């Protein structure tokens, strides 16, 4: 974005007069290539190029927000002009815009699209030749100019593959869902290859998940989805009253449990160097030694310590909200065999399709596509799709102190929607055991 930051700060100056006022301009340039894959062929190619700008002014509990298409000087002026008019300030004079000078990188589109498509074709051809996938390669460049703060900009490149494939199984052909979300890199494609090969491995015929209460091992890093729902969302600073809010620094889980939200983990899908208000993120302890930790804040909800760098927006047309980024759970010392032995009888889950939480009550649901029954510490039947459900506090209390040794990134966690805004999120977790979870088969 070819912005004259000093001019923008001058335009914002009349809006930032009081202590605590917040006046800023946010711009985004987005390039996205989406490819619809069917059985080894690209059936449709879509390219998106968008630019947008918004301006925001907040004083106390009152906020004015204006967003426009485009990210050149004219767009910035239009957004600030609308803001100043709605705030009752002298309007910004209308002046002819300088021509925008697109960056070289922006002009080139998504540089890795063709190369990635070739590599993906080879990976799919080998491990999942019959499939229906959507690949999204997204690059965003974001810039924030705010009064009283240094200008910040950040670029992110994301790789996101979602869909289904036909697996050849001992029980015959079966449809399996698959999702993989990672920051774009050559290593991500190597990781995808391994993940897809694992997902396509032959399995026995599944029997329905028995309804009732069950002890469960959440394996393969998928526990990150649980903590994203039951800790991340309730501790977002604008979340309203939740069971956790009523218990600041109270013990809610075993002392071995450490959960942080770490946006600095750029190897995970939700990572970033600056949030969408220009703040450098810092890790936030959600549960520290089993005690309820801190909230995830943006500038509008920051205590004296300032924003934790979790002010995020889905795009320039939306104001920032305090949102989680990457939920990371610290590992323990238990190996997988010992986990199974400790579980005894129960179910083993290594994949979630999605989840939700109701903040006020703390009740949550997680959908899983498959599971394994564990009997006397050994894998038994393959189980079909189901739903895990529970309440936040009893579930935290029911986590066993034995945490898995290896902390794995969970690539099935990708896009999180709240209040109509979708942002990338990620997570990593060790295997863990939770007792007495509600389980029932999915339709």
């Amino acid at each position, binding site marked *: 974005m070819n912005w004259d930051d000093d001019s923008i700060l001058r335009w914002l100056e009349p809006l930032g007069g009081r202590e605590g006022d917040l006046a800023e301009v946010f711009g985004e340039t987005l390039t996205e*290539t989406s490819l619809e894959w069917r059985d080894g062929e690209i059936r*449709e*190619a879509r390219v998106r190029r968008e630019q947008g700008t918004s301006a925001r002014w907040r004083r106390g*509990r009152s906020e*004015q927000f204006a967003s426009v298409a485009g990210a050149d000087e004219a767009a910035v002026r239009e957004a600030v002009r609308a803001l100043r008019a709605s705030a009752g300030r002298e309007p910004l004079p209308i002046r002819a815009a300088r021509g925008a000078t697109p960056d070289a990188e922006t002009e080139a589109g*998504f540089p890795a699209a063709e190369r990635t498509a070739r590599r993906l074709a080879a990976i799919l051809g080998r491990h999942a030749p019959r499939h229906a996938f959507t690949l999204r390669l997204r690059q965003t460049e974001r810039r924030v100019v705010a009064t009283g703060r240094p200008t910040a900009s950040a670029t992110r490149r994301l790789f996101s593959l979602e869909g289904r494939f036909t697996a050849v199984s001992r029980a015959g052909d079966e449809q399996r869902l698959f999702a993989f979300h990672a920051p774009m890199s050559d290593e991500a494609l190597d990781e995808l290859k391994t993940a897809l090969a694992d997902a396509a491995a032959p399995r026995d015929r599944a029997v329905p998940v028995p309804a009732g209460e069950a002890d469960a091992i959440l394996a393969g890093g998928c526990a990150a989805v649980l903590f994203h729902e039951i800790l991340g969302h309730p501790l977002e600073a604008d979340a*309203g*009253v939740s069971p956790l809010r009523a218990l600041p620094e109270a013990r809610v889980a075993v002392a071995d449990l450490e959960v942080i939200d770490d946006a600095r983990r750029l190897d995970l899908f939700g990572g970033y160097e600056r949030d969408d208000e220009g703040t450098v993120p810092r890790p936030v302890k959600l549960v520290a030694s089993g005690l309820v930790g801190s909230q995830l804040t943006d500038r509008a909800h920051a205590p004296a310590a300032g924003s934790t760098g979790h002010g995020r927006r889905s795009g320039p047309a939306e104001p920032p909200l305090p949102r989680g980024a990457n939920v990371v759970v610290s590992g323990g010392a238990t190996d997988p065999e010992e986990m199974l032995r400790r579980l005894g009888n129960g179910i083993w889950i290594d994949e979630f399709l999605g989840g939700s939480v109701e*903040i006020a009550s703390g009740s949550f649901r997680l959908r899983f596509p498959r599971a394994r029954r564990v009997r006397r510490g050994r894998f038994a039947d393959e189980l079909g799709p189901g739903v895990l459900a529970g309440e936040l506090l009893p579930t935290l209390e029911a986590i066993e102190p034995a945490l898995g040794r290896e902390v794995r990134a969970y690539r099935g966690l990708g896009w999180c929607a709240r209040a109509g805004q979708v942002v990338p999120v990620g997570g990593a977790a060790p295997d863990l055991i939770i007792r007495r979870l509600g389980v029932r088969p999915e339709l």
Partner: protein
Amino acid sequence: MTGDDLGALLARRSPGHWELYRKTAETREIDASPALERAAWRREAGWAARWWEAGAPRFAAASDADGLALALPEAARLTVAAGEPPAWPAKKKSLDGAAAVEPPPALFEDLLRAVAAASRGEAVLAGLTLRRGRAEERIVNAAGLDVAQEHRVFDGVARCVARRPGRAREVRLPFRWESAPETETLARRLADAATLPLSDRPTPFSSGQWLLDPAVGAALLAAIAPLFLDGKPPRWVVREKLAGPAVSIVDDASRDAAFDGEGVASRRMLLVEHGTLAGRLHDLSSARRTGATSTGHGVRPSFRLPPQLGPRRLFFETASPSSSAALLAGVTKGLFASALTAPLRVDLPADRYEAEFTGVSIVGGRAQGPVAGARARGRVSELLRRIAGLSTDLQFFPAPFLAGSPTVYVERASFD
């Protein structure tokens, strides 16, 4: 770069097989809660092109014409499987001048009071977002189509929290108002959805009649909408006996917009007539594949996506409506589903559905008491055939397309 320049670019790339779409929109929004009062103004602009190059479909979208001109060659560079272009419509219609967008009214305090009254003080409005907006669309194509139209919207989302000692429930309801605000209806809906689950009372019946609030009926209709789209219907679909004889299902978006997202005229489509499957919806692509003609159901949820087949304003209709009171009086033993407590799940190929809801138990046509949570499940085919009555209180809900339903009477369902 202008629209004409882009049209010329597309014509060079794909003679005879291109389409150019432009949208400009303006919205005003008020977001109110005890912690925040936000006024937002948005101006959106979007361009999109669809064309067939080297025998394969391509799509590009951008926030301005220059961006779209850059995106065209990028989308053309990728190797894509061949596909046939549709038969493009040709029509001309310009747009008259349109009025500016007024800000939505400040209704938070009114709704706060109405929710408190409807819930007898148990529920509190936690937030209200109201949005008014207008969008202008123009679509041109290689066959000479050049149509423009305007849409207006007045919608929002309300959040409400109800508490009793040791229990809490939060609900979030999206809504759309056709004209004037319907604050009382929204308040009642919020109050019921938030307070009924707190009753702690399970369903007293394992089977019985099932009365669906219009919001639940609309969710059911939205879930079965794929039956009316492209592709082979599931094996269980018997054309003459899809639903009870009282049921007709219609899609008619002509009051919302003169054209669909591909420039085909909107029209009333009778999909189910007195229980018999009577028609299906088509966009240009499905029409080409099946040898049918487009019914005007090429939907653009955003300029960022190519048009896709979908319902636009789908609703239940009946030749012999009853009043809601008459339907209630017909329930000898059953449940009234006031609100869903989880998204309604439907597996159409497997002929299965599952609805988790909160509501009220009814005996002899009289409400007996709240039911915190119940689940109805079974075969979609049986559920549709057991719809024996529809009321006169048709209401529309964003699903995200508009789905409309009155109170629905199902003569038998199983609950747990």
